[in-house]
């Protein structure tokens, strides 16, 4: 096959006959994929060969990024997807290749990230014989994918790939896995374009909300005296236009806006109506407003336990409107009064239209009282912290990082733990798709590979992984990937020598018995960075913090920033286990958090 026949869509069956491996490459091109993340192995060698040949003929139109561990490939794909709205694509081998990818697949499922994962499989005739590097990949991943396929006939391959992209990216996005036995990669079949295949499933997600319910919701919001928007990752997934619609509708209603961890950036933190994040480590004002509101408008969030706290005390006196593209999210954890199944952006647009059509206006007098009440909660300044001349406070580090990067084109990823919550609290996101974090699954090791994915999608931007010294070691090998592809990601480690969130919970619940939560035998992160070929910076003096952050930002190379912070700081405010939104621990209570949680609360997660 020549370059010209590959580029111009061939029409006759003979020229469209290709091997399964070539079909994979052609289908990726036709799906608009330009970057994929992977790691070769025996059962995917034909696809790697087809990639090699395509790169020889057509240059880098399909760029493969070689990671150092398959988990890294999946998180990189997630970062790529979350920052672009396009699906992340992963290619790994059978057996351990597939099993190593599973953490990232579950992560994508929990956080609704569009992802298509290709796994090699042993040849069809060896399936079920416990062959070398055989694992029942579709069996293992059935519970952790939106859908998955084992391709037994090359004739099905084009249809399956195009269908997989459709399923991964539409409705509630999620990971779809395609397991391709090696003999299917070698056998010849006829390629079909996305327009030529007909899908075999009855999959047709609903995106347009019910007009009657939307009108009813609009009237309920107009009548509200204490309304609040509680928004989530669904707004981000609905595209940048949905964030604009949210801003427009919030302005029309005059209601305050809070968001889940996954939804940060959909509403600008600079807007006066922004209350900050809600939930376990949310702000005092957001949680109190949620508790006391009379109409709650939940857009693309799912009443997760980190958000609701104790369910029987969750916003007890409110009418609840829930907009979600996944019908099974509605009434799952919290019973709502109006459930609207649809795309967040589409439903918000329809709400705006209904608001205008019915000539609705907000109750300004009631809203003035509501805002006065909210200002009272805000006056507690729940995120305040005290700095000193000797040690850097972790909140201070995030605060300065924000101040020094806010006027740049910046993307933030995180690992999981205290640093993640501090980042969510103190980094003020103004735009969607700028914040990549592992919310549902809470995967340590997510941040650096995710940053790699983001940097590949946005080569000229500043991409920072806010990390902890424990989390960063879970996928530290991907530093080598960043070096190989010249990706100037910045890894900003809040190093307190503890698995901080574990220690905080041990302090809360287990009588300060710090079982295995101290980060023993830490590497020298500066030398580690240098060993990989990156730049290492260490800072422990508050006076030097700004200069060193600027040094990091200005470096054209990957940087590991070892920021030594106060070791005993806890992440507050916090809703302790088993408590309601209006029973938060504030920083001023923080000295003795060991006595806050009762026996029943101790049993919870």
């Amino acid at each position, binding site marked *: 096959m020549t370059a010209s026949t590959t580029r111009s869509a061939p029409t006759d069956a003979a020229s469209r006959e290709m091997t399964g491996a070539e079909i994979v490459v052609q289908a990726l091109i036709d799906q608009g994929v330009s970057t994929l993340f992977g790691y070769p192995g025996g059962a995917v060698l034909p696809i790697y060969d087809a990639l090699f040949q395509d790169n020889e003929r057509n240059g880098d139109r399909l760029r493969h990024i070689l990671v150092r561990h398959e988990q890294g490939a999946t998180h990189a794909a997630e970062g790529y997807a979350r920052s672009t709205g396009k699906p992340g694509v992963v290619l790994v081998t059978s057996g351990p290749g597939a099993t190593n990818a599973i953490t990232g697949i579950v992560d994508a499922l929990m956080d609704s990230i569009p992802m298509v994962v290709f796994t090699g499989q042993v040849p069809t005739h060896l399936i079920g014989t416990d062959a070398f590097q055989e694992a029942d990949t579709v*069996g293992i991943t*059935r519970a952790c994918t939106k859908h998955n396929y084992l391709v037994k006939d090359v004739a099905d391959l084009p249809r399956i790939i195009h269908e997989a992209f459709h399923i991964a990216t539409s409705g509630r996005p999620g990971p779809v896995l395609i397991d391709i036995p090696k003999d299917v990669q070698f056998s010849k079949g006829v390629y079909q374009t996305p327009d030529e295949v007909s899908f075999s499933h009855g*999959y047709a997600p609903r995106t347009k909300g019910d007009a009657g319910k939307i009108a009813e919701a609009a009237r309920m919001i107009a009548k509200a005296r204490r309304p609040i928007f509680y928004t989530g990752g669904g707004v981000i997934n609905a595209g940048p236009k949905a964030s604009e619609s949210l801003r427009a509708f919030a302005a029309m209603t005059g209601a305050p806006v809070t968001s889940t961890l996954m939804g940060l950036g959909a509403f600008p933190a600079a807007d006066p109506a922004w209350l900050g994040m809600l939930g376990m480590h949310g702000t005092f004002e957001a949680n109190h407003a949620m508790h006391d509101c009379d109409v709650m408008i939940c857009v693309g969030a799912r009443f997760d*336990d980190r958000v609701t706290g104790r369910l*029987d005390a969750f916003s007890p006196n409110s009418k609840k409107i829930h907009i979600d593209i996944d019908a099974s999210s509605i*009434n799952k954890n919290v*019973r709502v009064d109006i459930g609207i199944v649809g795309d967040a952006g589409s439903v918000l647009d329809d709400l705006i239209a209904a608001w205008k059509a019915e000539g609705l206006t907000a109750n300004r007098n009631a809203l003035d009282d509501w805002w006065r009440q909210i200002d009272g909660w805000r006056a507690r300044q729940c995120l305040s912290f005290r700095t000193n001349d000797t040690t850097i406070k972790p909140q201070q580090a995030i605060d300065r990082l924000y101040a020094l990067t806010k006027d740049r084109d910046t993307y933030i990823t995180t690992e999981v733990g205290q640093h993640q919550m501090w980042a969510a609290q103190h980094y003020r996101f103004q735009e969607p798709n700028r914040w990549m974090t592992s919310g549902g699954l809470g995967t340590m090791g997510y941040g650096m590979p995710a940053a790699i994915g983001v940097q590949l999608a946005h080569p000229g931007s500043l991409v920072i992984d806010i990390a902890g010294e424990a989390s960063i070691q879970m996928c530290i090998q991907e530093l080598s990937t960043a070096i190989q592809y010249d990706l100037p990601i910045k890894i900003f480690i809040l190093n307190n020598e503890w698995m901080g969130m574990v220690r905080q919970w041990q302090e809360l619940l287990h009588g300060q018995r710090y079982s295995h939560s101290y980060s023993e035998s830490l590497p020298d992160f500066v030398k580690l960075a240098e060993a990989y070929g990156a730049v290492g910076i260490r800072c422990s003096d508050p006076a030097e913090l700004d200069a060193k952050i600027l040094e990091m930002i200005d470096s054209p190379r990957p940087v590991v920033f070892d920021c030594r912070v106060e070791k005993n700081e806890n992440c507050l405010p916090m809703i302790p286990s*088993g408590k309601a939104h209006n029973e938060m621990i504030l920083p001023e209570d923080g000295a003795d958090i060991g006595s806050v949680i009762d026996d029943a609360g101790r049993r*919870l997660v």
Partner: protein
Amino acid sequence: MTTDPQPASAYDLSHVDETENLATFALLVDNEAGVLHRVVGLFAARGYNIESLTVAETDRKAHTSRITIVTRGAPHVLDQIEAQLSKVISVRRVHDVTRDPRGIERELALVKVRGTGTDRVEALRVSDIFRAKVVDTTSESFVFEITGAPSKIDSFVDLMRPLGLVELSRTGVLSIERGAEGM
């Protein structure tokens, strides 16, 4: 449904006992490898009960199978089961048979009874009342085939127990709607 208490979660300390109902769901699914696992795995992963399950291909040309699954749960759990099942890509249609007044449910059982003398005569007499068929007999045993609503089979089995019930095999519930329309 709004009168039900909130469902349990990691944060709910009060495990309120709610009235659980039996429910039968009829599913039309794509007949492909692993589809039963998708359905059964969903029940296992989310902690739903399976009381009975039947599955067979029903339309070779359309490549579809029908799964009938009997479960138990509070009303909001049953709603959630229906929503979760509808989300499975290979599931084409979900029908809550129990809440449909037009739903018909039937089950078939094979019942082996061993006995002689009056017990044997009584077993045969009861089987006649229930319109069970004798599909095998020896001088000291019968195998009955009985169809009907699950409750009818339960009563039949209860009556057979003192008469020498040896073994019971049930298909699980099958269902269909009354009227001319298909699912």
